[in-house]
Every structure is written in structure tokens, then in C-alpha cells.
């Protein structure tokens, strides 16, 4: 069969596959899940094939980039279907976020700022969902806002997801009384500063256009002194750093944060100084927090994917070096 025919065949297969599962989705099929045994077998197979590549390399056949691409794709995609029970060690900074939440009495007001956009959603959305789930389950009142234009949209997605949970649904939570989304406000860190004296001046209406003073949940909220706990989900500027510098340092807010893995290490000094009570860092932080809040969402699954991808990258770095040393031995050490 010619390459062209093979390619067309693969295309047709992809289309058929998509169509079948799409129809299945519309018909309400169950999600695809590998049992633990199948998952382990799959992992073993992948590991064996990597070993095979290593042997091939030692024998002097170099793999091309497309094989690397394939493995990255596999490493990310397969774990999403797997059932793997894993021990999750809870790091102190994640536990601190949880403990502060646990210490809040029913009816406490929690402010959540969504300062990210869709590209960072894989890391931060699971944190947002788990956080909202905990708040709703324990009757905490949630006020949401965003310093990034697309933040409030992410908030709405998270709320939608959490509200579809049976347990939360039965609580019959009402918009405006139990939770509210104040929307986006432009102005970076100055928004936080102005909120220090008056929330309403920054959010005259919520994202639906309801005037601030007509929203039961917030009409008595003047500034940070009426907020019991602040939580910030951030992937850059403006984000956690600005919340620490203004809301914490100037207005004495209790602040926890969820950050992307890229940003998280820069926040450790704040935590050591006690300006930040806790920190969820990257996919791992999301997974740990999901474990604590018992909201098993995508963070746990995504974390396995990420760990797999890391193993693959490390494996290929090793294979690459093996290939290099092999070729060096063969050609001698001429430079």
C-alpha cells in the first residue's frame, strides 16, 4: 500500500472514530475507563517500548522527532482514561489553604479573584472548582471577581460545573445570596487598592448588570474588612504578588492563592514571611487540594498526565545521551 493510501486510511479511521464517539456522547454513553489492571498493562507496554527504543539506539538506530512527538501525545492522552489509585502526599502549603478554609464558620464571606485566561485553565480551573465545591458544601458565601478580562468567564464555567454536582444541587443555592460574580474590572493593581476603601466604586454592578446595592450578599460589604478570607487564582500579572502587596500588606486581608507551576516558586518568599497563608502550586497542588476537599475533578487526572509527560521527557534526554556517547565511542574523540 502506498503512503498516500495509508494516510487516507488513517484519516478515515480518525473520522470514523470521532463520529462514533460523538454519536455515543449524544446518546449518553458512559465515559471510557481503563480498569486498574488494564492501566498497569498499558503503562508496562509503554515502558517496554521505551526500553526497545533504548536498545535500538544503543545498536545505532536513532529515533526521529516524530517518535518523540508520538510518545508525548501518548503520555498526555492515555492517563486521562486510567484508573490509578495513587497516594497523594499533602504538602504543608496546600494543607494550610485547606486548614484556613476549615476554620471559617458557616456564612463567612470568601472573596475569590480569577486572574487568568483559558491557556492556564488546565492548572487553575481544577483548583477553582475544588475551592468552590468546598465553599458551597460548607455554606460559605462566595464573592467572585477578576482582574483579567477572561477571569469571570472562567468563574462561571467553574460554578456551572460545581452546581451540577448532586450534593450541591440539593442545597439549592441562589445567585446573589449564596454566591455572586462581580465581573471584570480594568486597572490592574489599582483595582485592589480602590477596593480597600470601597468595593462598590470598582464594581458598580455585577457581571449581569445588577446594581451592587441590590445584591443581598454584598450590599453590606464595604471593603476588605467585611471579607473573612481571600483566595487568588493567578497566572501572571496582575496576580498573587499584587494581592499580597496591597490587600495583605495594606489592608490586612487573609490571603491564600493558587498559581501556575511557572509562577509558584516566586511566591514562596511571601509564604515564608506569612503574607500568604497557603499556596496551591500547579497541577500537583490542584490534585492535593482536590484530595483534601474530596472533589475529585480533573486536577488529579491531569497531574498523572503531567507526571507521565515528565517521565517521557527525562527518558528521551537519557536516550539522547546514550545515542551521543555511542556515536562518540565509534568515531573516537576527534574534535
Amino acid at each position, binding site marked *: 500500500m502506498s503512503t498516500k493510501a495509508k494516510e487516507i486510511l488513517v484519516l478515515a479511521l*480518525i473520522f470514523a472514530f470521532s463520529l462514533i464517539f460523538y454519536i455515543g*456522547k449524544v446518546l449518553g454513553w458512559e465515559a471510557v475507563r481503563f480498569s486498574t489492571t488494564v492501566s498497569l498493562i498499558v503503562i508496562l507496554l509503554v515502558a517496554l517500548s521505551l526500553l526497545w527504543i533504548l536498545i535500538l539506539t544503543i545498536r545505532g538506530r536513532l529515533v526521529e522527532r516524530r517518535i518523540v512527538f508520538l510518545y508525548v501525545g501518548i503520555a498526555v492522552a492515555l492517563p486521562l482514561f486510567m484508573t490509578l489509585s495513587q497516594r497523594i502526599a499533602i504538602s504543608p502549603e496546600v494543607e494550610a489553604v485547606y486548614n484556613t478554609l476549615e476554620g471559617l464558620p458557616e456564612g463567612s464571606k470568601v472573596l475569590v479573584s480569577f486572574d487568568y485566561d483559558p491557556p492556564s485553565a488546565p492548572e487553575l480551573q481544577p483548583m477553582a472548582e475544588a475551592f468552590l465545591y468546598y465553599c458551597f458544601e460548607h455554606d460559605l458565601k462566595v464573592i467572585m471577581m477578576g482582574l483579567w478580562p477572561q477571569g469571570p468567564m472562567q468563574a462561571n464555567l467553574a460554578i456551572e460545573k460545581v452546581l451540577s454536582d448532586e450534593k450541591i444541587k440539593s442545597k439549592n443555592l441562589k445567585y446573589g445570596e449564596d454566591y455572586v460574580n462581580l465581573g471584570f474590572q480594568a486597572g490592574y493593581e489599582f483595582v485592589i487598592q480602590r477596593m480597600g476603601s470601597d468595593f462598590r466604586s470598582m464594581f458598580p454592578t455585577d457581571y449581569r448588570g445588577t446594581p451592587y446595592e441590590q445584591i443581598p450578599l454584598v450590599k453590606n460589604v464595604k471593603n476588605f474588612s467585611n471579607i473573612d478570607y481571600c483566595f487568588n487564582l493567578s497566572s501572571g500579572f496582575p496576580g498573587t504578588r499584587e494581592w499580597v502587596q496591597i490587600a495583605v500588606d495594606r489592608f490586612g486581608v487573609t490571603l491564600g492563592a493558587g498559581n501556575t507551576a511557572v509562577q509558584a516558586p516566586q511566591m514562596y518568599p511571601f509564604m515564608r514571611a506569612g503574607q500568604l497563608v497557603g499556596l496551591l502550586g500547579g497541577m500537583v497542588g490542584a490534585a492535593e487540594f482536590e484530595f483534601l476537599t474530596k472533589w475529585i475533578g480533573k486536577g488529579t487526572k491531569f497531574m498523572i498526565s503531567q507526571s507521565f509527560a515528565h517521565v517521557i521527557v527525562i527518558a528521551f534526554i537519557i536516550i539522547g545521551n546514550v545515542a551521543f556517547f555511542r556515536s562518540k565511542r565509534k568515531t573516537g574523540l576527534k574534535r
Partner: protein
Amino acid sequence: MEHFALWLGGFLTLGIFSFLYKDNPWYKLTEAIYVGISAGYFVVVYFWDNFYSKFWVGVFPHKRLNEAGELIAGVEPDYWLIVGGVLGLLMLMRLLPKVGWISRWPLAFIVGATAGLWLINYFASFVMVQIQNTVTPLFGMDYSASLYVIVGNIVVAVGTFTGLVYFFFSKEHKGAFGSAARVGIFFLMITFGASFGYTVMSRMSLLIGRIDFLFGDWLGMIK
């Protein structure tokens, strides 16, 4: 509509991914869509944001009327902006071959402004601030630092110094100077290795998001 949007998203996503295999018509199609749409989008956004809101409204401010329909004093027009408009028009003179050379004037303006502005900004924040930050007591204030911190401080000072030696143009990298430059290269290599290793891991989450869209939102295989 929702079905169409999902299939469209799936089609475009797979089209881009197909480039990893090789260049192919599917990728060409998605690329053509992407280029056309994004260019159009930016023309539109710049037109409204820069030309209309900043320039047009700046020169011809909206008239503010009170309830009785009388004109009330509003924003003063900013006639300075017309200079920018004239420079922009000069730029368009390129289209006329005879006077095309005049388009170099706005270009010269931009180059002068950029060079002058960044000269001083880079000087202040890249040179002055970095030198100032490097000058710290190696043993910490009042001997308070731990061995860990002291080693760190020494490394920062030595690394910055030898790094600069590496960049020196007027001397061949030979002798003691050459050894210092080589230490400098080591520091630069550590810097590059560290930044790379640091980013490798975070890039994976971008892909996870797309794969989740394909198998989750689109095909419903993951819940």
C-alpha cells in the same frame, strides 16, 4: 450550533496537530483560515482602538449634550494628534513612486523616538539597578547569614563579574582573562539550562488542555 462549534474546534485542533506528522493540505487549510482571520481581527481591533478611539475621538471629541439638548463643555480636542495623523499619511506616500522617499520621515521619527526612549530606560533598569543589586555584603548584615546564603552571595557576585568578562569585546579570551571568561560561560550555561528545565515542565499543561478538549468536550470519552 453547539454541535457545529464542537466539530469545528475538533477539526481545527487536529489540523494544527497534523503538522507534527508533516506538512499537508489539512494543515494548509487551517493555516490559511488562521492567517486570514487573525489578520482581519487585528485590523479591526486596531482600527477601533487606535484610529477611532485614540485619534479620531481625540481630535473630534464627542459632543456632550445636556438633557435640554444644549451643548455642554466636554473634552477639549487634542490637536497634537494631527501631527501623528500627518506622519501616518506621509507613510502612505510609499504608494506613489514619485514621492515615495518622503515615507522615510515618519520612519526616521519612529527610529529616533524608539532609540532615545529605550537608551535611557534600558540604562536605568538594566545597568544601574542590576549593579546596585549585586553590591550586597557577602556575609549578610552583621554576619547573620548561614553558610548556604554566603555561598549563594559569593556565587552571585563572582558569576555576574565573570559573565561580564565573557561579554568583553576588546580583549581576546586568553590567559587569566580567558579563564575568567570561561567561568563566565559556565554561569551563562547554568542560567540557560535552569531556565530551560524550568519551562519544559510548565509547557505540558498547555497540551493537556487541548487533549482534554478533544477527548472530553468534543468526543465525551472523559467525564
